[in-house]
């Protein structure tokens, strides 16, 4: 009973916090750039407004265009049940490990690119092609990083990684762990469309990737996609925070431990959000042709992580 309640709470948490997280990052960024910026609650208002608007679908669009927002949102909701946000061995751990989580994330990316191509507009196709270039380069890196993490912990099961890292905290200092973190962080930037790869705050046609694919969406479809991409950021943040720095995650389901874990999770998310905002303020956007360089560095980090966890004993 307590466990299913926990799962429901995790899912609710991901749904409820993620728009606020995006709003918070925007707010911190605005402050860093000397603007007052919209309130962190603005994404919630945007979502409410979008859900109330009518949907306009191009006559050229097929069922893929209509089904993609639901697939994207659904896959992120399932992932939020599997990521250890608050407590470590989750009942849904048996549902799938880190590999499943990553490929569920990529399933959403895949359908979004298809949906970008579907109405046959120029921007959609351009965005889809760019997104596929980035995803194709990010995927080997993230798979290797997972492998490095899994070899270090002896399992790719999310709950097990957290439990084993907590039982041997010195391992967080090992190069395999840190390199896998660096690699996953770069992949996070690429996959969630953050600054050195894609600028989330612009609709400039020459640079956009994510925005180009969802240009045709409106109304509740757009709301679902926006919500899903906020959840994607939330999921990546919590993966990075809880797999690599698992302190605070509750190992028992006592109210005190859960409350502490909740507080620590919020704190970690805030730390990640602020560092991302600082990073985005300081970094210029990379030219598209330099993105493969960044991702090859991420791949190299992951490769070194695997060799150092696998070969150094």
């Amino acid at each position, binding site marked *: 009973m307590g466990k299913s309640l926990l799962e429901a709470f995790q899912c609710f948490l991901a749904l409820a916090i993620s728009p606020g997280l995006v709003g918070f990052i925007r707010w911190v960024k605005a402050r860093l750039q000397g603007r007052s910026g919209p309130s962190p609650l603005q994404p919630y208002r945007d979502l409410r407004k979008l859900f109330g608007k009518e949907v306009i679908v191009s006559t050229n669009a097929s069922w893929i265009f209509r089904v993609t927002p639901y697939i994207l949102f659904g896959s992120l909701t399932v992932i939020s049940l599997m990521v250890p946000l608050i407590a470590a061995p989750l009942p849904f751990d048996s549902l799938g490990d880190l590999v499943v989580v990553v490929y569920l994330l990529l399933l959403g990316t895949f359908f979004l690119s298809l949906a970008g191509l579907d109405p046959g507009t120029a921007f959609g196709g351009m965005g889809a092609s760019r997104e596929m270039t980035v995803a194709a380069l990010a995927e080997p890196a993230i798979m290797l990083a997972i492998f490095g993490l899994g070899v270090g912990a002896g399992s790719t099961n999310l709950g097990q990684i957290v439990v084993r890292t907590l039982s041997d905290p*010195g391992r967080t*200092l*090992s*190069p395999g762990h*840190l*390199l896998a973190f660096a690699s996953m962080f770069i992949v996070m930037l690429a996959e969630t469309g953050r600054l050195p790869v894609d600028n989330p705050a612009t609709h400039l046609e020459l640079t956009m990737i994510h925005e180009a694919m969802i240009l045709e969406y409106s109304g509740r479809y757009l709301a679902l996609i926006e919500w899903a991409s906020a959840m994607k950021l939330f999921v990546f943040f919590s993966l990075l925070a809880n797999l690599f720095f698992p302190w605070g995650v509750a190992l028992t389901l006592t109210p005190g431990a859960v409350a502490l874990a909740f507080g620590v999770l919020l704190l970690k998310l805030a730390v990640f959000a602020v560092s991302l905002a600082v990073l985005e303020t300081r970094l210029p956007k990379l030219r598209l042709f330099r993105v*493969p*360089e960044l991702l*090859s*560095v991420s*791949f*190299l980090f992951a*490769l*070194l992580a695997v*060799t*150092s966890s696998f*070969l*150094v*004993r």
Partner: protein
Amino acid sequence: MSLDLFMRLNTLACSLVLLMGIAILWRNSLPAYIDSFARQSMFFVMGILTVAVYTRAWELYLVAFMVFALKVVFIPRLLHRARKQVGADIEIRPFVNTPASVLLAGILTLLAYAVAQPIVALSDLPTRGSIPLAFAVIFVGLFITASRRSALTQIVGFLVMENGIALLAVLATYGVPLIVELGVFLDVLLGFLVMQVFLYRIRGTFGTIDVDGMRKLRH
């Protein structure tokens, strides 16, 4: 310092030395190369210090101090000055492009693990796990020297390689005798100064430090 903590810190320092070497491959401005080299030497000093604290060998403190003075402060400063005087700023068109260089660095690291296997098997020191990393630093330094056009970058590549050799000495034997170490330092310093003189001569004769232009010597 406990054995476990020593091994972890030592491996971390050695990995950072390797990473700073590889960082040179994916950046493309000469100031960044020099700074990466200075940072690499800094992590190298950290690696020596972990060994020094663990083994309580006073010579190693001295070695660490000399490496700091020479490779973190003195040589980078001279390099920066030389760079300003010859007016070189970015590495143009390396022989191998950036993504390929970075991936090759990964392959070189794997190769280092393969060739260092027998040496690791011979050693029973707690630092033996990092020996392949030192080999990897040597290979990466060699690769930088071979794949870049600018004479200044080639000097940096040589210095990276030298860092790798010195790291290998510290890891495999806890440091060679002090007199040998001093001789090596003098060698590096002299080699570096000679190369710097060459740098100015190349610049004076050809008007650029792009060594590709030196093909003209054949005619």
